[in-house]
């Protein structure tokens, strides 16, 4: 090695892609003329390759299956009881419980304001009486808002709003009940009575996705993606939100006739469900 040779730091920077363009060009010009530097460069490159190489037998063949099984098992477990949570979380839960009365009123207000048809249609449709206990009083605990997607503000959609075939739909919710106590489906029915799925995403015909489990959310919480409808027919477009105490499958809705997709019929069919509809016009 001579005084003009790059340092080990230079060679490492080149190997690591961290050398400046000028310095990298100088080193590359030097290497063909210097066996010592070429050897040093080759040994560093071999070391990098060895560090990158996967370990023999890691992971074993069943690793992915075991991970998915574990997640499935944990997902089907009931939510952990409050005493299992760290103290910090217990305090947060206690505060949430103290506020829940006020928040329930607020959520119910959101739901009622959004209701598009005669509220009388929704008052006694199979839901348990309020006195039967909070866990299944979905209309008091869950508020769902359908929004116009694709912009920064995501404004709520309301009865009479106009949309186009390019409109995307975002959905937010509040759930004053515990996580996993309510499940949501949102779909649109166009003027040709074709159902277009918004949530859950229904991407592959061979699949049969289930309702989206709602986490506990005292504040409005967005579901993570906006959805576009595929070739909706122009004319009246209803967006239906269906909140249930148990998960439903897409096929259970797809199997219904057009008349059964009316909110009152859906609520009668799925005990305890809370159903809402927004009447839009698609140009």
């Amino acid at each position, binding site marked *: 090695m001579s005084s003009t040779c790059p340092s080990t730091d230079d060679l490492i920077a080149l190997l690591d892609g961290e050398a400046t363009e000028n310095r990298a060009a100088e080193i590359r010009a030097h290497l063909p003329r210097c066996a010592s530097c070429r050897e040093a460069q080759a040994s560093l490159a071999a070391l*990098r390759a060895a560090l990158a190489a996967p370990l023999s037998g890691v*992971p074993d063949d069943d690793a*992915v299956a075991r991970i998915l099984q574990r997640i499935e098992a944990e997902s089907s477990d009931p939510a952990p009881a409050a005493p299992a949570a760290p103290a910090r979380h217990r305090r947060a839960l206690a505060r949430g419980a103290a506020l829940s009365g006020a928040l329930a009123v607020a959520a119910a207000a959101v739901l009622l304001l959004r209701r598009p048809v005669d509220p009388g249609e929704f008052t006694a449709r199979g839901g348990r009486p309020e006195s039967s206990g909070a866990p299944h009083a979905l209309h008091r605990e869950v508020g769902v808002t359908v929004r116009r997607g694709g912009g920064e503000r995501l404004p709520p959609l309301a009865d009479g709003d106009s949309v186009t075939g390019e409109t995307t739909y975002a959905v937010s919710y509040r759930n004053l009940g515990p996580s996993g106590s309510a499940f949501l489906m949102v779909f649109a029915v166009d003027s040709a009575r074709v159902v277009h799925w918004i949530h859950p995403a229904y991407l592959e015909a061979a699949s049969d996705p289930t309702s989206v489990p709602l986490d506990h959310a005292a504040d409005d919480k967005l579901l*993570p993606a906006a959805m576009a409808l595929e070739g909706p027919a122009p004319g009246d477009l209803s967006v239906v939100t269906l909140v249930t105490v148990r998960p439903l499958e897409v096929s259970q809705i797809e199997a219904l006739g057009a008349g059964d997709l009316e909110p009152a019929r859906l609520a009668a069919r799925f005990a305890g469900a809370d159903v809402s509809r927004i009447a839009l016009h698609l140009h």
Partner: protein
Amino acid sequence: MSKVLPLHPVTPARGQPLASRSDDELMLLARTGVAAALATLVERYTSRLTNYCAKLLGSAALAGEVCQETWLRVWKLRAAYRAEGKFVVLLYTTAHNLCRNHARDTRRREHWMPVAPADDAVERVADERPDHLDALVAREQQRELHRRLGALSEPMREALVLRFQEELSYEDMAAILGASESTIRSRVHHGLKQLRHDLARRDDR
């Protein structure tokens, strides 16, 4: 059928099979109940993630446990996940923290062992064919490298594996390791020099 789009307008990816979709899209789909989306993510990363954990912990068995726990935590965090192109940071930060907890709790650094599998019956046979001998030499070299890797400080080891196995950017590594990019760049360079020095010294003996 439906089409999934980002909440806010970025480049949408329509009509692609799950395996071609981005990490962000798969996480969003997993949240909306598409179980196959999670499976695709697990398949995409489990080999790399387990190797990362094994190289940090020096135990393939422990790496498998930590990898499982990592995925479970990522699954539980799905509701809070923000689709900002940083899934890999979430995944490796979670794994990194779990590895550190294991190393601290059980003082495994003192018991760090190279993770290449132990000699088996086939190797004990006196097979002197050249290709077999070459394979044994390569394996011994690999085992020695991991022995030396295990002797490095934990921050250096983490930085080297994330940089050269995972090929992560210094920006992502800084987010995962909780240190500045310049600090991590220094750990990578010093770690590589130290490893090269240790291996050369062994060869001189």
